[in-house]
């Protein structure tokens, strides 16, 4: 009897551990699967897209263009800074992502939600936004103005 018992206990302990280890491993497997499946696409992998020709953008006046993203159009303000220099700003306010609008009469961007104000370069002039407007990749290729993903 004595000998039987001593051999049995480690066996049971092995089973207990086994149940824990197997369920843990299977759980982790599915968790990992879900994690990698739901992982968001890496930033700034959007392709360059033509948003207009040089003549569409009068110098010094931000113009709103749309960039065809995944299933939706994305709002981008493009400014021709002259001498082949360009600036592309994402139109989502950095406070809580409301859409900002350029006001030509006051030469500023305004956010309708909590009164965020930005200058033409997207720097914060007032209100709650914590950062400048996000910049996006922009290139002039010949006569074409091309916009890409967000610069981080």
């Amino acid at each position: 009897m004595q000998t039987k018992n001593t051999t049995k206990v480690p066996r049971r302990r092995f089973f207990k551990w086994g149940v824990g280890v197997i369920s843990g491993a299977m759980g982790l497997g599915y968790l990992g699967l879900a994690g990698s499946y739901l992982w968001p696409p890496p930033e700034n992998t959007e392709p360059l897209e033509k948003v207009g020709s040089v003549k569409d953008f009068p110098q010094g006046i931000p113009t709103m263009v749309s960039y065809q993203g995944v299933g939706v159009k994305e709002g981008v303000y493009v400014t021709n800074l002259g001498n082949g220099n360009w600036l592309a700003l994402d139109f989502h306010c950095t406070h809580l992502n409301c859409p900002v609008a350029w006001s030509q009469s006051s030469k500023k961007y305004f956010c309708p939600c909590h009164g965020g104000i930005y200058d033409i370069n997207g720097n914060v002039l007032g209100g709650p936004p914590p950062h400048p407007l996000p910049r996006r990749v922009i290139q002039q290729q010949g006569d074409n103005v091309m916009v890409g993903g967000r610069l981080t």
Partner: protein
Amino acid sequence: MKKWLDERLQFSTLIASMFEHPVPKPSSFMDYLGFATFFIFLSQAITGILLATAYIPSATDAWESIKNLEATPVGHFVRSIHSWGANFMIVLVLFHLLRVFYEAAYKKPRELTWLLGVILLIGTIGLSFTGYLLPWDQQGYWASTVGTAMAAYVPLIGEFVVRVMRNGSEVTGATLTRFYSVHMLLLTVLILIAFAPHFFFVLRQGMSATDELTAAKRRGENIETRSMPFWPNVAWRMMLTLLLVGIALWVAATLAPKGLGDPADPLNKNQYIPQPAWYFFGVYQLLKYFPPKLDPLAMVGLPAIAIIVLVGLPWFDRNPSRFPRQRPIALAVATLLVAGMAYLTYQGFRSVPKALVTTTVTQPSYKRDIDPIFQNKCVMCHGNSGNYHLDTYAGVTMKNVIPGNPNDSVLVKKITGVMQPQMPLGQKPLSSGQIQTIKNWIQDGAKNN
């Protein structure tokens, strides 16, 4: 049938343990709120399954599919019930929570029931948040954009969390399918998993209101006169409550059918001003009062504290008493919080852009005609944080208004554009009717009427 089940499952003891406990007289309708919430959940499940047969979860088709659904009276009605049901569920779950708090029913031995309740509350809020985006209209699109943007204020991982929620850096079709799956499956399953033990514990332990009675019974006292049986007396009262809630829901859906706004426009060409669902008005309003530096506190800190307090309440509150008189601090703090939240929600309501009259009012009153214009169009900038406040009568008339002389008033010059830059900045100007209304009011003496 009963016998058949009994042979196999000892059914009648099970039923007896669930239904045959005595309930103190009088039994309060407030104790049925949890049950009513569950009823609304069932209604949401039924209407949700129906809606899923017509809804197409894609950025290009979602709005259209709802539009088509609205074309049939039954389809429209089912959608209205679902949408109203969401509001009912939030309200009932909150009242249920308050009632349980007031009754101190979260205390020993019911800590786990409370904890599961907190999970159910969070699940309910999650359901309404994710459901809001699904019609893919302007309101839902921008509310979801702003709502997910809040997560960016979580230290260190904030930006990443936003991208996980949106499945990218903006709210797109990929966000929609993600929300759809979370709304229909993840949260619903989570709620069911948490609900089963939540409900089981209540059956097992009885409501806290029955404790006294049970103790008396154990002491061998006769409780006949001060109690009534759960089955069928209380059950009947519960069904009546459900009937009332059900009627209210159907009547609301009939009288105020749920509309569908303009389709989501991520470019926001019509300069729609984002606004949250009403149950987030409190937070929405709080943000306006908080100086920008404290934004992370309002957006992440306070919700986190709220969750910690809710989860830990049975352990934080060490006062064993259940009588309201003996819990002055707990009740005072809770009353203060509820009053504060109610006030903020009310203020949020007031300042949310509503459909304003755009035509001229000849004898305008400040409260009825003028204040709403300012609240809708101006206080986002000229509220508590600007130099010129347009949110109170005193603020409006402090300067820039010359009673009896609209054309020389700076306020009028600003909104007409005579003085640049024209207000509201970066937005569409006020309609000529609205401008004339303001002029008329100043002409009449800019009275506080």
